[in-house]
């Protein structure tokens, strides 16, 4: 096969992959425009697109409230997680002597733990703390559950910062605290940005935890609120689809704004493994 043919094949494969990725969205989009209460197959463009479905979904699910709730949860989770993970990552990468290297393994072990496995004990724990049905029932466990990955992520970054910089800062008269805030954190900005984006995504799309730990849909995350379309009004497929698209919207907008950082975040993971 010559180079031209090979590049053509590569392109064809990419187009195919893109189609496979986009198809569910397009399908959802067409279904969202079908008349409310019908059962569209999601394969054809409706003859009479019901744009009003988006408005209805927004109202039915009380999206305004949900947006606020989601934002509150994200604000409660992401900055705190990133701060703790940055400090812990720095500590594990730069301040830990060989004798205590194993501490890091504790975090790595946490990576193997699926959310689903801890959800039941978590329920009892949150109940014992008296936090059931408050947003803290989502915020506090999420911070904890994100730690293994976040610490792993930040540690990987700090390991790559040359020790010379630390030493230069020390000789310039910096305390550890100075060095951390004035040298390490500014240098870690790309890693911190990536981590923030990932944690935002995971929090925004968090479904299981809110559904189990918080009964009031208006105190959940947006994804958790999807449940509102079930049960109460039966499953209204077009509204469900319209709602899902609305929930996706903020992440997509964010993606468009931070495209480069997103890609960098994923690449970073790929390289550092």
């Amino acid at each position, binding site marked *: 096969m010559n180079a031209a043919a090979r590049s053509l094949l590569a392109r064809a494969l990419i187009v195919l992959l893109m189609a496979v990725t986009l198809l569910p969205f397009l399908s959802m989009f067409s279904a969202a425009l079908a008349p409310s209460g019908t059962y569209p197959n999601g394969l054809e463009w409706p003859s009479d697109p019901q744009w009003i479905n988006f408005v209805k979904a927004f109202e039915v699910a009380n999206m305004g409230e949900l947006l606020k709730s989601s934002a509150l949860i994200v604000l409660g989770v992401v900055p705190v997680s990133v701060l703790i993970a940055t400090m812990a990552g720095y500590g594990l990468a730069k301040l830990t002597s060989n004798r205590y290297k194993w501490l890091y393994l504790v975090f790595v072990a946490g990576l193997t733990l699926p959310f689903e496995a801890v959800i039941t004990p978590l329920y009892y724990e949150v109940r014992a703390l008296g936090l059931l049905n408050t947003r803290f029932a989502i915020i506090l466990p999420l911070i904890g559950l994100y730690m293994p990955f976040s610490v792993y992520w930040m540690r990987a970054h700090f390991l790559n910062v040359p020790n*010379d910089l630390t030493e230069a*800062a020390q*000789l310039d*008269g910096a305390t550890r605290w100075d060095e951390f805030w004035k040298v390490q954190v*500014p*240098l870690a900005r790309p890693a911190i940005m990536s981590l923030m984006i990932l944690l935002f995504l995971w929090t925004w799309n968090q479904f299981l935890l809110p559904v189990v730990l918080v009964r009031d849909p208006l105190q959940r995350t947006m994804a958790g609120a999807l449940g509102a379309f079930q049960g109460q009004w039966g499953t209204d497929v077009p509204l469900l689809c319209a709602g899902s698209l609305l929930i996706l919207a903020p992440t997509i907008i964010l993606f468009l704004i931070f495209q480069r950082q997103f890609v960098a975040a994923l690449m970073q993971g790929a390289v550092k493994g």
Partner: protein
Amino acid sequence: MAGLELRDIRKSYGNVEVIKGVDLAISHGEFVVFVGPSGCGKSTLLRMIAGLEDITAGDIFIGDTLVNDVEARDRGVAMVFQSYALYPHMSVYDNVGFALKLAKTDKEVRDKKIREVARVLQMEELLERKPAQLSGGQRQRVAIGRAIVRDPDVFLFDEPLSNLDAALRVDMRMELSRLHQDLDATMIYVTHDQIEAMTLADKIVVLDGGIVQQVGSPLELYNRPANLFVAGFIGSPKMNFLPVEVAAAANDSVIVAGSALDSTELARPIAGIARADKLTLGLRPQAFVASKAGIRGKVELVERLGHETIVRVRLKDGSDIMAVLQGQSDVMPGDAIGLGFDHKDVHLFGKDGARL
């Protein structure tokens, strides 16, 4: 402003001792160069002085203060790293001013000092740039600027020129010499390059295997190397070594002979040797002149540098020696050649390698 003293300094990594008891006194204002092959412990020693590395045993004094337990940031030393270690996110201005900022120096004073340093190092036009936008030589300047802006008691340099190209290295070497005179500061400089050591140092400390081999001025080391290691390390091309045996030893002269060397009389008293002792005779390549007498051999290789001619000569026992002949010699490879030398230029080393 301060001198420095090391007393029986040792360093071990696990069971491996890499610095094996170093004693050294450095007076205020001296330019001291630690020189030795890669891995001999130069950086480790320097980093112990800086406070970046724990001391396994021994005492370090800066001025009159025992600094064993003093943090690096409180030792009053500044260091220039081989990698420069500039803060990549800060402009040159902020890089140079970082220490002053940490010390909460008044903003106007700070600005004045930074600009003064930039002027001294001729990098005023670089102040707004980030390190990534600088060439190697410019980064080097910034790294030096960052050190001098704090006006430290002691400057430490760890192979600061090894990432620069040859021409720039010569320039920076002169600039460092000039800075040393201007600043009147104590400087300790680490290098594996004996030419840097010879050109910069007031005092050279030759290290090998974590042990100080010799301390002295460049010419002391060149003229009277304490042992085979120093003799081979200082000077370029390397000193030639010939195995010899003592044929006769009298009170005020000694006669030696070897497989490549006819009987040679050295008219000076040498203590502690006897007939049949096996010694090493050292001759610098520059000690030779082409002549009918002396060491005979065949020219293997000729390098013509214009002001001098470097020849490699194969001797009758199959070993090679290097000779640097003054001026433009017309020797050709394959020629037979005789290399004469003055007996005063002969170095003799005993079985243990120590100078006799």
